[in-house]
């Protein structure tokens, strides 16, 4: 008995692509080729295998009218009850503060503008990623240093109306700063004059008033001298065969601009920044990655399909919308559906004022109205043409 050739297996399996996704086709092709090498597969057997794979796949598909959203909600919600409710400790990568568990998941789904613990993973270009010194130097370069970080002591001299800073030499040296550099940044950024006096910096406001001095004092302390805005702490870590830079705080657009950075792989956990810089499709991927990471980290096994559905719902309107009152649930077309979620009276009042009508197309509306719901078998309606009447099809 002669088996079919590998080439026929390939062409036959490829025909499945219309029905079955790529990953399944590849898997089937791989295993058929492997089996084909050990023993002959006849043409009929091949046809039968392909046919049964197709049947199995079609059977496993979600039926039209299935309540996938409810299933996703339950599948994420139930394991969610077992998640860490609060995180106190620093965990994960090298002592960086990471939000974990339920708070993080809520943050992702609520599409918060800023995560409570922003974190960037910066990959470097080959030249910098291989050398510890170069990676360190880069980390040093982006870490934000404010005047406060290099100052030992501050005094407010109310008689002469001067603000005096005592600089810390060793801390400045580590950051490659000099008193004159600090002085010139202060002069450049604020309406003040800075005089160097040994280890001290005397800062004089241009308008000689006490209130101006006070205002200046707070401004001087927070003045960034060096580094990228928002990057508060930097940790360099060996990962595989390259050095990766982790940062507390995030500034995606500025970091990507730096020549040392491999901007094709660098990511942040601030999904809004990803949306702004890379677009809504990248934001969708980021939502999925972050949610999966959070759930995995807690040892929960939730099927990605549920998370993908949530991410799709959050991004289908072209911008990221939270799941909740100001997003997915708050933008439903039906008044009754919106009112049944949160802030009932507001939705009902507004709908009255604007003269909205509810077509009772959705599920919630029909439950409220006490009618069969358009779900599963209920989503099919019967149209009939009676004898003697033309009517539409």
């Amino acid at each position: 008995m002669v088996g079919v050739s590998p080439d026929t297996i390939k062409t036959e399996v490829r025909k499945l692509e219309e029905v079955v996704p790529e990953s399944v086709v590849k898997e089937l092709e791989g295993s058929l080729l492997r089996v084909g090498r050990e023993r002959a597969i006849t043409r009929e057997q091949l046809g039968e295998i392909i046919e049964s794979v197709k049947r199995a796949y079609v059977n496993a598909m979600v039926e039209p009218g299935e309540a996938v959203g409810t299933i996703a909600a339950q599948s994420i919600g139930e394991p969610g009850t077992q998640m860490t409710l609060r995180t106190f400790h620093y965990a994960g990568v090298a002592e960086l503060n990471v939000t974990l568990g339920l708070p993080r998941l809520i943050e992702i789904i609520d599409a918060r503008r800023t995560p409570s613990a922003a974190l960037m993973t910066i990959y470097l270009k080959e030249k910098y990623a291989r050398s510890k010194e170069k990676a360190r130097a880069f980390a040093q370069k982006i870490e934000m240093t404010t005047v406060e970080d290099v100052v030992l002591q501050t005094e407010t001299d109310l008689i002469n109306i001067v603000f005096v800073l005592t600089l810390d030499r060793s801390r400045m040296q580590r950051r490659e700063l000099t008193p004159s550099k600090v002085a010139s940044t202060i002069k450049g950024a604020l309406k003040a004059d800075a005089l160097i006096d040994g280890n001290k910096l005397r800062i004089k406001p241009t308008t000689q008033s006490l209130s101006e001095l006070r205002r200046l004092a707070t401004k001087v302390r927070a003045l960034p001298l060096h580094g990228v805005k928002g990057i508060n702490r930097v940790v360099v870590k060996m990962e595989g065969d390259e050095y990766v830079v982790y940062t507390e705080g995030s500034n995606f657009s500025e970091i990507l601009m730096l020549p040392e950075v491999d901007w094709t792989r660098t990511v942040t956990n601030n999904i809004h920044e990803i949306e702004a810089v890379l677009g809504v499709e990248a934001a969708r991927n980021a939502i999925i990655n972050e949610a999966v990471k959070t759930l995995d980290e807690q040892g929960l096994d939730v099927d990605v399909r549920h998370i993908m559905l949530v991410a799709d719902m959050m991004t289908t309107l072209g911008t990221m919308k939270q799941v909740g009152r100001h997003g997915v649930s708050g933008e439903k077309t039906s008044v009754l559906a919106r009112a049944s979620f949160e802030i009932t009276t507001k939705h009902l009042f507004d709908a009255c004022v604007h003269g909205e009508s509810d077509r009772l197309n959705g599920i919630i509306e029909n439950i409220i109205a006490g009618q069969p719901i358009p779900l599963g078998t209920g989503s099919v309606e019967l149209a009939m043409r009676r004898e003697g009447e033309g009517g539409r099809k």
Partner: protein
Amino acid sequence: MSVEFDARQHVLVPKHEILSKEKAREVLERYKISPHQLPFIMSSDPVVKAIDAKPGDILQVSRNSPTAGRAIVYKYVIEE
């Protein structure tokens, strides 16, 4: 952005392509829908700008899916 920065080459960004008029019509006919029933993408989206798509275009997005390998989605470009 650095000179060579291109959002399209980031690992998180799937491939976006503008569909020709005929292809777009085919897609709409296949699903029996009108364009506004597709998921939207803003004309201000960095990737939309990079491929120079205009409002009214239909994009084909080839996502890398953890379940399907490759999944194709169509998006309708809307004005912001």
